[in-house]
């Protein structure tokens, strides 16, 4: 009875459960495999996945507003435009501090540009305000405080005051402003204890003091100022802003700041589908601004056209190649691959020469009297040009997978079909073609995905009607610098491709894709 039936796990010779021994034996193999791919994994992670993740993150990220004007964002949250037409003095006080610091750090123009995407004119408003915010007539506070006690003039006094926590608690707004100011100065290599106290700090101090209820435990200097501040002459910061530009009295400007305060926004995505998150909710953009849906549609349509024409031209070639003796087919394969040896730019430029109205193709057609000299075909700077050039460029990507799949279809299938009574066409259509579908799938996916994101060729031969969404993305990346929108457009493109991939999987089955 050597093979007694045992219940429980099977044991290895040394008594450990077999499963665990096996795992231990396999662990080293797994570690080896991991080590082998580790360099590539790290490379891809660092140079590809992380940047792309970051890019996609930008499509919803909106921290620029709350980072540049934090106090304003904070106070604006309580503003209800239905109750008061404009935010109250508090908000303008905060905005004064924020703007002053922003223009020192030269961040106000960036914020202006950001908000200008949502409301035109804001950009210049911010630039203008940045120039003038240092010259507000708020020195009246400084004068009065210094008159009360000259110590207020000394930055050392401020430094000392805001080192004490009870003072900091009593004057929260001034404390935050002082800290931000100090941080900025230190970043510039300066010492806050030596720089002149700016007017905005006195303005903040004034606001805090008028609100301060108890002077228990605070510095006598502050306590004295608290007593005196009730009798101070005041100035309206709001009026100062309105003085610079009456647009600061426009409700929609403040509404747009309020709407775009949160750190995340759907604004870029809405923009990508021709919608706008404005002061009164989501609505479609005006006619002349609706470009992206059309562009997405055109990108899809043209990619489909390109895929289809690649298939039409590539299938017979692949069929021929796979049925020729190996030596001949290898020779011809070199011709198929020849385009890969020439620069993409050269090939595209060659198409420019061929396709233009005074180009080779038109000349030949005119010479053959197929078209009239006066009506030369417009083959470039439109969709036709893009489709022709891109079909040529992407053709090898269709032929190669088709060829490698067709190569594996034994000729005996077609022979069997014919011996069973099928005509050449029936044998092809019912027997050969279904077996080449995996190649069609692989080639079509490859060409479609490549063309949907193509950039250079449409840019060069597409004119205005033949450009793709990717050209628009490139424009936003490098020219308009609206990276958020570029990211949102890119994300939508990615989602579209994934969705198509999913549909393809449902219909054809991704297992049916073979690249070789």
């Amino acid at each position, binding site marked *: 009875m050597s093979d007694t039936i045992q219940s429980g796990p099977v044991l290895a010779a040394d008594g450990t459960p077999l499963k665990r021994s096996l795992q231990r034996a396999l662990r080293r193999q797994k570690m080896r495999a991991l080590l082998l791919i580790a360099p590539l994994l790290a490379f891809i992670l660092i140079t590809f996945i992380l940047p792309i993740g970051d890019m996609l993150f930008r499509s919803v990220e909106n921290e620029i507003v709350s980072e540049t004007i934090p106090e304003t964002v904070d106070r604006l949250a309580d503003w209800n435009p239905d109750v008061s037409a404009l935010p109250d003095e508090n908000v303008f006080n905060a905005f004064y501090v924020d703007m002053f610091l922003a223009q020192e750090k030269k961040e106000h123009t960036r914020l202006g540009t950001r908000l200008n995407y949502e409301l035109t004119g804001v950009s210049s408003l911010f630039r203008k305000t940045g120039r003038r915010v240092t010259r507000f007539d708020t020195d009246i506070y400084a004068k009065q405080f210094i008159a009360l006690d000259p110590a207020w003039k000394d930055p050392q006094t401020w430094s000392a005051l805001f080192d004490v926590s009870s003072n900091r608690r009593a004057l929260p707004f001034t404390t935050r402003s002082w800290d931000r100011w100090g941080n900025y100065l230190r970043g510039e290599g300066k010492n806050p204890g030596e720089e002149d106290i700016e007017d905005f700090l006195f303005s903040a101090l004034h606001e805090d003091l008028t609100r301060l209820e108890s002077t228990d435990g605070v510095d006598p200097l502050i306590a004295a100022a608290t007593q005196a501040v009730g009798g101070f002459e005041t100035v309206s910061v709001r009026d100062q802003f309105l003085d610079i530009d009456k647009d600061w009295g426009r409700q929609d400007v403040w509404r747009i700041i309020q709407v775009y305060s949160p750190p995340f926004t759907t604004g870029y995505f809405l923009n990508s589908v021709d919608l706008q998150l404005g002061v009164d909710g989501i609505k479609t953009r005006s006619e002349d601004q609706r470009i992206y849906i059309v562009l997405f549609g055109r990108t899809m349509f043209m990619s489909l056209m390109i895929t289809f024409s690649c298939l039409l031209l590539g299938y017979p070639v692949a069929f021929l190649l796979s049925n020729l003796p190996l030596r001949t087919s290898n020779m011809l394969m070199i011709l198929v691959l020849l385009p890969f040896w020439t620069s993409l730019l050269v090939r595209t430029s060659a198409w420019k020469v061929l396709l233009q109205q005074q180009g080779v193709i038109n000349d030949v057609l005119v010479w053959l009297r197929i078209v009239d000299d006066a009506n030369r075909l417009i083959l470039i700077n439109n969709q036709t040009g893009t489709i022709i050039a891109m079909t040529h460029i992407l053709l090898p990507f269709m032929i190669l997978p088709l060829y490698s799949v067709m190569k594996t279809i034994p000729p005996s299938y077609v*022979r*069997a079909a014919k*011996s*069973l*009574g*099928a005509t050449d066409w*029936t*044998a092809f259509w019912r027997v050969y073609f279904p077996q080449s579908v995996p190649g069609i799938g692989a080639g079509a996916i490859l060409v479609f995905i490549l063309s949907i994101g193509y950039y250079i060729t449409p840019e060069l031969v597409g004119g205005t009607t033949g450009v793709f969404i990717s050209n628009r993305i490139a424009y936003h990346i490098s020219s308009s610098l609206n990276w958020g929108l570029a990211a949102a457009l890119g994300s939508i493109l990615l989602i579209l491709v994934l969705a198509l991939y999913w549909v393809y999987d449902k219909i054809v089955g991704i297992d049916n894709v073979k690249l070789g």
Partner: protein
Amino acid sequence: MTDPKHMVRFENVQKSYDGETLVVKNLNLDIAQGEFLTMLGPSGSGKTTCLMMLAGFEPATHGEIFLNDRPINNVPPHKRGIGMVFQNYALFPHMTVAENLAFPLQVRGMDKDEQKKRVERALSMVELPQFGNRRPAQLSGGQQQRVAVARALVFDPELVLMDEPLGALDKQLREQMQYEIKHIHENLGVTVVYVTHDQTEALTMSDRVAVFNDGIIQQLSPPDVLYETPQNSFVAQFIGENNKLDGQVVEVTDGLCTVKLDDGTVLKADMVNVGGVGERTTISLRPERVELDPAVDMENMVDGTIEESIYLGDHIRVRMNVAGNTGFIAKVRNRGDRRHLVPGDSAKVGWAASDCKALDPVT
């Protein structure tokens, strides 16, 4: 007109793929209706090429092929109505078994009910009635083989070609399938042209066997004739086991010749394929016709030495040194009273003159 009626006729058919060498050299072959004809030969001898020419996939370079006395050189394959079983079966992988079987019926425009009936009948003929909905990949090799046979027969062709159909099966399955194919052939009365390189298969199944070598039919005979009276050394060696003894003809007397072997031994042999006196010849002798220490004298008696003996149950295989030939094999029937065949012992071997054939010399 001719009797029995000829189904297929090759007339002076030649085939070259590259324009330099002839793969099939001047083939003349008649295949009778209902016959089971096997093309047997080593790999590369042109068997498949002949089959492909018959099926219409390769054009003959020269000569004419007739099907039912009609020249078919210009008839495309799908109009020839010839069923074919391929070596790798060529079952369409994207169709179920039933769809595969229905394919030839569909392309002939048969109506659906009739198709279904025929498919079912064909499936039960090969004893796979439950397998209609499976894909070929879900079948074992033997089952795929049966489906391939059923598909080649489902549209009732008069002629079926099979190109090494059992080559991919293991030995036991191959033997079983040999019988099944043979039975189907007998039951349906179709003409079968069968290609194989396995001589046992050829001998078991065929009415006639055409032995191919080098693009030429070496011999075309029923299996027993092929084995008993090979026409030349190639056939003798290719079919069954065979002792070769080289020598020179010294005398010829009515059908028998006297041959002097290279070591001086003189033998009498059946004169089959040899010139005349003075010619070199190779004598072919089946191991089972050799008697070890015969009780009575035989026409040929030679002294030999036992080199090795292998016990094989029903018989004992003895390798001997006979007439300077150390590879001489004798099969000794196991009668129970066997002597000890000890290596090194000397023994007499003897055989009848009619059992050894003087054939063309093997150089």
